């Protein structure tokens, strides 16, 4: 009988520590940091490709650096020879490990008839293995587009999402004769004018890549639209001041603001400007800057109905209006994230600086994205919602910048000097 008793006693003794309470601490709020990535100079395989190398290289470097996922390592630190091979068996991975790289991207360019061909290989440096191999071809003059295509492939490999590098943006640039609307690649390059002289502002890119904007060319502000390089045509004019257009995500409707005296209201119409309906009705107050929700059922907008400009949301027919921001007394230019959970906006803080914030649609929780870097305004989300395009005066004149939706990796677009305002990021 002694043995079973001893066994029972032993079980009790060993069970006690297991039952002792172990404190559990929850830790969240990771510092997501870009992955260190090495990107050696592309190898040109023939003379035909040599001329395109610099442009291709600049575009690829910018894409990978500015998207916020990667920290492109300084080439001066590289230990491997620039002519090192592009296959796993010819790469000395230890050299790349030693410079802190976790990923390595090698590219080769070659002329293929009238086309420029680009081959990209992505390696996991720790594992010493190839993880992605992709090949694309474009007309010889489109070296930047080739870079954007290959950058998208790398982006998709890691995130499983479509990258933003082949999307288009619109913005306003000040000129000697006024302000003109331009449409360009996501990095601001390859820009072409949509308007022609006078004052043109507040562009919006439609899903079909046509660009609507507010123009003062006939005196009062009216909405115009430019399609495929043709001269812009009138979209909405109703004798009052019409401005600030935004396309619904399916491209079938537009929302805009119509001002009359001391009052401004939000209107919704068909994408061709027909069937306009007033959806807010607040005598003596201003309602402006509509931005569609990704499902096309709601609108975010600015209203001063409570005394100061604040961000509100409502159904697209004007029902169920809710105030979303309660902090700050000058909140404006809302932009609804394509993911639906956040609305980015500009706010003037207690130091009289304009900065960018996001507000969670579900909870109203506000997060600051920019701080202590002069004035930062006019946010617009990338099509996948991961990046925000905005204007900033941190470099002197107002220019365009991108950052992640959490406010990290704030990078200037490689634009010429100038005064750039009211950007909009299309698909």
């Amino acid at each position, binding site marked *: 009988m002694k043995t079973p008793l001893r066994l029972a006693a032993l079980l009790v003794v060993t069970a006690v520590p297991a039952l002792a*309470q172990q404190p*559990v*601490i929850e830790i969240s709020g990771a510092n997501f940091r870009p992955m260190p990535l090495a990107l050696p100079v592309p190898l040109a395989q023939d003379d035909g490709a040599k001329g395109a190398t610099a442009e291709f290289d600049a575009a690829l470097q910018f894409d990978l650096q500015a998207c*916020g996922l990667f920290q492109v390592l300084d080439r001066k630190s590289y230990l491997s020879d620039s002519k090192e091979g592009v296959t796993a068996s010819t790469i000395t991975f230890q050299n790349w490990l030693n410079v802190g790289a976790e990923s390595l991207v090698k590219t080769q360019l070659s002329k293929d008839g009238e086309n420029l061909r680009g081959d990209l290989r992505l390696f996991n440096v720790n594992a010493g293995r190839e993880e992605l191999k992709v090949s694309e071809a474009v007309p010889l003059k489109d070296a930047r587009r080739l870079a954007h295509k290959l950058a998208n492939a790398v982006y998709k490999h890691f995130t499983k999402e479509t990258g933003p590098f082949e999307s288009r943006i619109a913005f306003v640039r000040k000129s000697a004769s006024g302000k003109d609307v331009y449409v360009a690649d996501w990095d601001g390059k390859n820009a072409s004018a949509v308007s022609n002289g006078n004052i043109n502002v507040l562009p919006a890119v439609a899903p079909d890549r046509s660009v609507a904007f507010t123009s003062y060319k006939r005196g009062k502000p009216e909405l115009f639209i430019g399609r495929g390089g043709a001269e812009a045509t009138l979209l909405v004019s109703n004798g009052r001041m019409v401005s600030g257009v935004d396309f619904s995500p399916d491209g079938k409707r537009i929302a805009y603001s119509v001002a009359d005296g001391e009052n401004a209201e939000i209107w919704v119409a068909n994408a061709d400007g027909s069937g306009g309906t007033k959806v807010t009705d607040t005598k003596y107050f201003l309602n402006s800057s509509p931005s569609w929700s990704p499902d096309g059922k709601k609108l975010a907008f600015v209203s001063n109905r409570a005394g100061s400009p604040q961000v509100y949301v409502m159904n697209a027919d004007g029902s169920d209006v809710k105030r979303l921001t309660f902090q700050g007394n000058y909140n404006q230019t809302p932009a609804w994230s394509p993911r639906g959970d956040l609305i980015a906006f500009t706010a003037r803080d207690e130091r009289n600086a304009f900065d960018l914030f996001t507000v969670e649609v579900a909870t109203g929780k506000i997060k600051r994205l920019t701080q202590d870097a002069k004035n930062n305004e006019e946010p617009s989300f990338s099509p996948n919602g991961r990046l925000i395009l905005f204007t900033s005066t941190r470099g002197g004149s107002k220019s365009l910048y991108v950052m992640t939706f959490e406010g990290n990796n704030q990078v200037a677009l490689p634009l010429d000097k100038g005064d750039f305002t009211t950007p909009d990021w299309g698909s």
Partner: protein
Amino acid sequence: MSARTESLLQPRPTPLKGFVALSVAAHIVFPVLLTIIGWLIAPPKVALDPQPIKASLVRLGKKRDEKLLPRKEEPPPPPPAAEKTAPAVTPAPPDKAVAIPSKDAKADPKKDAAKEPAKDAKKSLFDAFNKTGRPTPDEPEGDPDGDKDGDSSKQEGERYFGLLSAVVKRNYDVSDTIPEGERRTLRATVVIKLGVTGELVDVELSKGSGNELFDAAVVGAVKKAAPFGPPPAHLRDSLKKNGVALVFSP
């Protein structure tokens, strides 16, 4: 006595019924009694699935008006570096070469200041405006009763766990390449055991997230954060024997 009356087959009175009845009664009464006694003298329940402790350390500073827009959460300033004593070196002979001023060379700022008194006056005026309502660098925002090592705007839970959490969080770096969709479900548990001086005695990934990058990052965060401060006396034994579980989510 006759042989007939002494027969074993003769029916006799038996106590079996009484035993059965007693047994049934005992089987009913004893469990009921035990339950009642159990209720009366039951010890506090042991939580087999303990609730996580939310521990954050409020930083020392001035309280922020809730109506104001938020400021970015920033880590506390690093401790002041120990003064370095410059090694005694033999002074180099004076360079007699005269520098040739380049086209891009910046002019002497002192000379510029003398040339532009009006600009300076304007700047100081703007500076005066800018300072209005702005806390000075010596007045960080937080709580007057906060902690100099704090990194949060609110105080919760045991101070030592708050400190532990703040130090680990400062080293909690995760690769941005982890897809957004995956981040929402990532959860990893690391159990750490600490010595009396706060040194890391043991670290174990007790429950992985399924993502190699994330798991490596959370273990790395703990290792980089160690050693921690010495635990208070009432936690010392528990942290050494049972440890503390850190549940990481992005």
